[in-house]
C-alpha cells in the first residue's frame, strides 16, 4: 500500500462499464512527512474519502478486484483506507482534517 493525499476529483460520463457508479479521485503519493513522492495517480474510492484526506492506496490489479468485488476489471488503483494517524518512532502526526 502507498501513502497518498487526495488532491481532487474527476468526473467522467463516457467511461467503461466497470467504472460506472464509482467515485474517481486524484491522489498524490506522499512521504510520511507529507512531502510529495512521485507522480499523481487517479484512484477509485471505496471508503468515502474526500479532498485533503490522507489515504492508503493499492496500485495492483488483483487487490483492486477484491476491493471492488470485481474480477478481470481494467482498474488497478483503489483507495483502501483513510489514515487517521501515523506514528514514526517517538513522534506522532495527526493527519485528520481539522
Amino acid at each position, binding site marked *: 500500500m502507498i501513502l497518498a*493525499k*487526495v*488532491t*481532487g*476529483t*474527476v*468526473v*467522467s*460520463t*463516457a*467511461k*467503461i462499464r466497470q*467504472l460506472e457508479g464509482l467515485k*474517481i479521485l*486524484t491522489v*498524490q503519493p506522499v512521504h510520511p512527512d507529507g512531502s510529495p513522492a512521485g*507522480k*499523481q*495517480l*487517479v*484512484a*477509485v474510492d471505496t471508503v468515502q474519502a474526500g*479532498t*485533503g484526506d490522507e489515504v492508503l492506496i493499492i496500485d495492483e*490489479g488483483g487487490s*483492486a478486484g477484491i476491493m471492488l468485488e470485481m474480477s*478481470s*476489471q*481494467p*482498474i*488497478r*488503483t483503489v483507495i483502501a483506507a483513510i489514515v487517521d494517524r501515523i506514528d514514526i518512532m517517538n513522534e506522532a502526526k495527526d493527519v485528520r482534517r481539522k
Partner: protein
Amino acid sequence: MKIGRVTGTVVCTRKTASLEGVKFLLVQPLDDTLQGSGVPIVACDTVQAGQGDLVLYEGGREAALALDNWFNPADAAVLGIIDQYDQVDV
C-alpha cells in the same frame, strides 16, 4: 489510472489478431496541472475518445482487461473521457 490528453490516432493494418478492430490513440501523459509529462504512449480506445480529449487511462496488465477480448497484449487503454477535473492545493 492516470490522466492524459489524446493527441492523435495510430493506424495499423497489420497487427496481432487479438487487437483487430481496436482503435489506437496517441496519449500524452499529464501531470497534476495538466501539463505534458513524459513520453507519449499508444493506448487502446474503449470509449470513442478523439483528438484533444482529456482522458483517464490505465497502464499495465489491467489495460488488457478493458477490451472485449481480454486475452490480448495491450499495455495501455483509455477507460473514460473526463468532463470535469477539480484540483485543490492540500
